[in-house]
């Protein structure tokens, strides 16, 4: 529905980029310099011994009606970003602006309770995210109920949503989570997320734990619901094919930082960052003559407790040079492609990297 619409919208407000683009639309969600460091405590006095830099200075926008895919290896901060967006964990630094209102601001902002009416989340573990002691209709109705709807009205709303996610209310309303299959449970979770009529839904690995056939059904359901309820999605996944199918734009994360963001077609056709390239070349090819013979990336990502200096990817990057260890590359729009942004010295003219173009 909104593939074309989303692709036409710009990545606005990059850090250090004061320019305002012509015809810019106010984004539904603007995230600026989002940072979360988890302290690691230990020792007899429970002192902070180290910090895990789970999310470090992440900025991005989500436009109304688009689907932003977030990809990256395990532990790169995808889920932490989702929980920060939902304000389920407090953020250390940075700001989240929802539809022009600063979330959690003392005056004139959007309270967390109001944010939760507009932004909802679907979790990966379909079983753990449903209360085993409540019938599923009550789990769905809980949101409207706490926001002041009377119980019968809230339950009625739950029935409608069961219908909307393709489950017969007559059969499913009174069931308990353990009486449903994984796909059915995830449909319930989606219905629960929609119960407050949110404008944006964060899907944190929402289909990752499902069988492939069920995954396809749930993905199609998500596409239908998006059209039906005018939703915006932030779709977090490690499955590159799924992200390509559902997203308008993709954001690639590595060790708590954004390395590349841009329209899904361009990123998949022509990845600019060496990490994105490695990630995409790790996708199994359907053509046996083009099978991957060499592992594109070896080893695990470095420890986020003490990430490498400069560019965090340099320890695994085939093109790493001195400059990469010295300066952390900013997320900037590369020349000739103003729809995307890359954090790599090679794409930044005059950065000092031997492969970078000369300064303009």
């Amino acid at each position, binding site marked *: 529905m909104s593939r074309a619409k989303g692709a036409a919208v710009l990545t606005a407000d990059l850090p250090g980029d004061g320019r305002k683009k012509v015809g810019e639309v106010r984004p539904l969600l603007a995230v600026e310099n989002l940072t979360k460091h988890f302290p690691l405590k230990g020792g007899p006095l429970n002192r902070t011994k180290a910090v895990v830099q789970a999310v470090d200075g992440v900025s991005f926008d989500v436009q109304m009606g688009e689907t932003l895919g977030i990809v990256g290896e395990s532990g790169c901060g995808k889920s932490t970003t989702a*929980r920060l967006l*939902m304000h*389920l964990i407090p953020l250390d630094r940075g700001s989240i602006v929802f539809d022009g209102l600063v979330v959690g601001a003392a005056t004139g902002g959007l309270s*967390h*309770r109001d944010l*939760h*009416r507009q932004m*909802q*989340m679907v*979790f990966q*573990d379909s079983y*753990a*995210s*449903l*209360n*085993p*002691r*409540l*019938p599923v*209709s009550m*789990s769905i109705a*809980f*949101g409207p109920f*706490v*926001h002041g709807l009377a119980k*019968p009205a809230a*339950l*009625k709303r*739950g*029935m*409608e949503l069961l*219908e909307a996610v393709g489950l*017969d*209310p*007559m*059969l499913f*309303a*009174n069931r*308990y989570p*353990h009486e449903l299959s994984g796909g059915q449970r995830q449909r319930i*979770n989606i219905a*629960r997320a929609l*119960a*407050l009529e949110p404008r944006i839904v964060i899907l944190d690995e929402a289909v990752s734990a499902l069988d492939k056939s069920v995954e396809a059904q749930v993905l199609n359901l998500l596409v239908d619901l998006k059209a039906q309820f005018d939703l915006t999605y932030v779709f977090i996944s490690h499955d590159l094919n799924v992200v390509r199918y559902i997203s308008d734009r993709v954001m690639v994360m590595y060790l708590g930082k954004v390395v590349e963001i841009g329209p899904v077609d361009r990123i998949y056709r022509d990845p600019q960052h060496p990490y994105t390239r490695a990630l995409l070349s790790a996708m199994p090819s359907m053509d046996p003559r083009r099978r991957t013979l060499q592992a594109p990336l070896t080893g695990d990502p470095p420890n986020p407790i003490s990430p490498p200096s400069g560019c965090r990817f340099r320890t695994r990057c085939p093109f790493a040079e001195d400059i990469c260890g010295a300066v952390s590359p900013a997320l900037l729009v590369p020349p000739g492609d103003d729809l995307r942004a890359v954090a790599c010295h090679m794409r930044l003219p005059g950065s000092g990297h031997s492969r970078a173009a000369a300064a303009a």
Partner: protein
Amino acid sequence: MTDAAALPADPAMALKRAQQGKSYWQRVWERLRDDKVTLAVIGVLVMLVAMVVFAPWFTVHDPYTGSVLRRLKPIGTPGHWFGTDEVGRDLWSRMVYGGRLSLLAGVVPVFMALLIGGFLGVLAGYVGGLVNSAIMRLTDVLYAFPSILLAIAITGILGSGLQNTILALTISFIPPVIRISESVTTQVRHLDFVEAARASGARPLTIMRYHILNNVLGPILVYATSLISICIILAAGLSFLGLGVTPPNAEWGLMLNNLRQALWVSPLVAALPGVMIFITSMCFNLMSDGLRQAMDVRL
């Protein structure tokens, strides 16, 4: 999915059904009804309670008047079918009346520990942080003493008597109840559905009421019922040591202590109060097993 067509596809009716839907506890009750052993055990306990509450209806002789002429009659003596004790009191009467104190000392401390310990434990588990540390470290201090020693120490200080026994046992049962409630709550608190409830904008007390309590009450309750049998034995133990109920009051532990000297003369009679303790604690244990099974929704 097959019989979907057979049902009237009327949303109003579906709504009605959902509102009338069986709650969790209704389902537990249904499962309990099918469990014959647990039902039988509960039946025995109900009979026991009825018997001690309406003790005068079940006894002929006064439990406190004896006769030297009738000392230590064996089981089966006409008029005293369960024999008589060392001062000639009817043993059946004493066992029925003694059940009053024994059950009271077995149930009341557990119930109070459940209220106090459950509240503190759920609070510690749900709030976490400093509150948790404060409550749990205090618990650790009490935990350092074995519960029987703690009970002995407390009654030793306060003196014997039913009230002090109950108080001592309550205090010694609070730490394990706190432990269990805290760990169950901590487990539940970190599950995604609590996060999801927070994400829907619910306030902490609402989350507590709809999402935490119904998940933690079951395990805590089951644990508490298993404590009842221990509590009866501990109460009997305190009386046996002379720290609990004082003579001439009838109490199973005390009776056991008093009949100890008659063990060589009339062993069966001397063992009877012990049999009562055994049956009661066994029943409570079996009941808690049955409850545990009925409450496990995943079975």
